[in-house]
């Protein structure tokens, strides 16, 4: 079983399953400006924070002025514009991942790196977060390391992948 890795910013636009989640949400809300906060929730849940390229994507799709989106994002404490830690490990705990052992992955991370969800290592190298669903249910259990989606993970694989990142 191989770890499926998706990388590079350009490809993210097309292949990151999380983009599709956000696109679907915008479509469901009829691209109305009213639903901006709802859409931001979807994005924040998928990424653990709001990456700039995603904000730009939402801004463009909803045809809103950039300042309108940024001012809204910065107003609410729920939204964060920065990922915590130099590298982030975002564990999906959506239903599919949950059933296939997302909690085991979190336990493993806690065991090996002494980090619980929401925490950042003392040297600020690694931050661990959970997402409600990243839309990669076929790859469950899935983890997003920085911007790469790693799917069908086992406990050993997650440790190796994280170590490879923070080394």
């Amino acid at each position, binding site marked *: 079983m191989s770890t499926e890795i998706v990388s590079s910013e350009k490809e993210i636009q097309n292949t990151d399953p999380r983009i599709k989640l956000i696109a679907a949400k915008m479509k469901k809300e009829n691209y109305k400006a009213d639903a901006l906060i709802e859409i931001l929730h979807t994005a924040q849940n998928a990424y653990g924070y709001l990456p*700039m390229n995603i*904000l*730009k994507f939402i801004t463009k799709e909803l045809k809103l*002025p*950039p*300042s*309108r*989106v*940024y*001012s809204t994002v*910065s*107003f609410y404490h729920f939204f964060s514009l920065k990922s915590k830690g130099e590298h982030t490990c975002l564990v999906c705990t959506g239903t599919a991942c949950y059933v296939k052992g997302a909690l085991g992955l979190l336990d493993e991370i806690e065991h090996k790196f002494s980090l619980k969800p929401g925490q950042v290592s003392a040297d600020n190298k690694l931050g661990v977060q959970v997402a409600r669903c990243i839309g990669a249910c076929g790859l469950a259990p899935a983890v997003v390391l920085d911007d790469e989606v790693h799917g069908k993970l086992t406990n050993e694989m997650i440790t190796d992948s994280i170590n490879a990142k923070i080394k």
Partner: protein
Amino acid sequence: MQNITIYIDDKKLEVESGKTILEVCRNNNIEILTMCHLEGVLDVGACRLCLVEIEGVNKLLSACTTKVAANMVIRTSTERIKRYQRITTELLFAERNHMCSVCVANGKCELQNLGYKVEMDSIRYPRLFPQCEVDTSHSWYVLDHNRCIMCTRCVRVCSEVEGAFNWSVKNRGYQVRIISDFNTPWGESTTCTSCGKCLHACPTGALWPKAIVQGQLDKKPEIIEELMAKRKMGL
């Protein structure tokens, strides 16, 4: 529009209904202090300088957003109102850095004039001394956050008059700041048309053109009103 009778500071007035208290006062030469009101754009009631007492209402209401009603008894300059205007002014001065030589030199700063009007001789509250940035990235204009009082006149002019939506406000509480686009440098804005209206709307030295020697800075907020009046007439 029908006419109604109201009383302002014990003066009986016949005024058109549907007008705000501020409009009525200005038409009748009754002075109302304000920093966030700008003729030509919508009112937000944010500076709280235009608060007035209305008989039968237990709250102070902002003159710029409250419409006159028949038999309203309004007081605009009671001791309480004057005291509050002075505190508001002191808080505005205490919030950021208003140690400014330009307005002292040319006397054309609305904030400075406000200080004189409320007879402010000092700031009784500890000043906050925040570190604020100065954005000089635009080729012609400068945004100096130190002088900004968050009246949002620039934001409203940019969206309501120019329709560019370059400006907005980020964060909340005392950490609010004016932003361009995605909190990016003004010079990199994709929406700013460099029309310069926000410079005239700005009541302080937060927005100013590079081409003018600062001592000669002279703002003309009235151009916004003139522009909107012309627009209404279809000119």
